[in-house]
């Protein structure tokens, strides 16, 4: 029984594990939050929100698969999801802020995405929460990527 150098140093992996786990916590909280808005409060879900859900929900499943046992490859699968989700969330927030003109608005039917259904403390909207969640996940995953050994 000799510990050779090919073994991944345990300490560094623990750090990456914790970072990915934190990203999973954020993704799961966001997913449950989205389900709460939609299924419990029965708020209408607009098209852009659906696209953000598409990129958020899979993280809840993919990240834990990379945690047990630890597999840093999960970062390669999860980062594109978080990245694209982040871009859509930013787009959505700009739309609400009125920085993107009406005619690019992709939703023609149902709930307009530019409508604000929730506003807490005067500035917290659902798209803002989404931007923060995606940004948080992305930063955690990127940090994990550089912290974990290949």
């Amino acid at each position, binding site marked *: 029984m000799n510990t050779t150098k090919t073994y991944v140093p345990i300490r560094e992996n623990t750090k990456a*594990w914790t970072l990915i*786990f934190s990203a999973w*916590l954020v993704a*799961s909280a966001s997913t*449950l939050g989205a*389900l*709460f808005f939609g299924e419990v409060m029965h708020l209408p879900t607009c098209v852009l929100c659906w696209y953000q859900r598409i990129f958020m929900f899979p993280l809840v499943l993919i990240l834990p698969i990379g*945690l*047990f046992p630890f597999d840093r490859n999960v970062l390669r699968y999860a980062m594109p999801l978080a990245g694209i989700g982040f871009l859509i969330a930013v787009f959505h927030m700009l739309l609400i802020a009125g920085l993107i003109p009406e005619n690019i608005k992709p939703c023609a039917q149902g709930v307009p995405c530019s409508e604000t259904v929730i506003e807490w403390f005067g500035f917290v909207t659902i798209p803002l929460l989404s931007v923060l969640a995606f940004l948080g996940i992305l930063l955690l995953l990127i940090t994990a990527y550089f912290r974990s050994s290949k």
Partner: protein
Amino acid sequence: MNHKTLFITGLVGLLLVFIAGTLFYTAQKEKQAVQAAEANRASLVRMHSPKLGKASAPVVIVEFFDPACETCRRFYPLVKQMMAQHPGKIRLVLRYTPFHGGSDQIVAMLEASRKQHKFWPALTALLTSQADWVQHHTANPSLAWKHLEGLGLDLDQLRVDMAAPEISQVIAQDIEDAQTLNVTKTPEFFVNGKPLPSFGYEQLKTLVDEALKATQY
């Protein structure tokens, strides 16, 4: 704490928060709905509404319904059944919430049938044939006509009566009351002024049974 314990703690924690939030929110909503119904008693029953059952019946079910709504069609015989099981005890009051496109025309047909004292047969006929005249969640009145034949209705007179302004007033009043009472989906039931805690046949039955029990003493 090892990784597995940490993960499971996180998972259970999040789920508990979600469940607690859901329970709290629904309880809060339920309380609000009961208060809204109590505060708006006058909006619940109007003189103009079609009613079935004895006026002295101790239990009054107010149903906000849309003739083009499939769930309303499925509930109709169930409510009738309940009334048959407790003869003379239950009174049904119908309110119109024609949320489906074209459904207001169907309501006008029903109201015009009512002038010829054929409201309930017309309603039964239209509900039974609903799949025939509702296409893609839109009511098509021209397809509904043939299902009114054979009920002994004067259809020419019916067409004239359908355009009567009092019918559109009735519909407008019902829709306004539905908004006051926060009715956004059909069917919505109020049993002796109490809204359903959540939607479902069992919930309706429980509420009716409770009301029946309360009147036995």
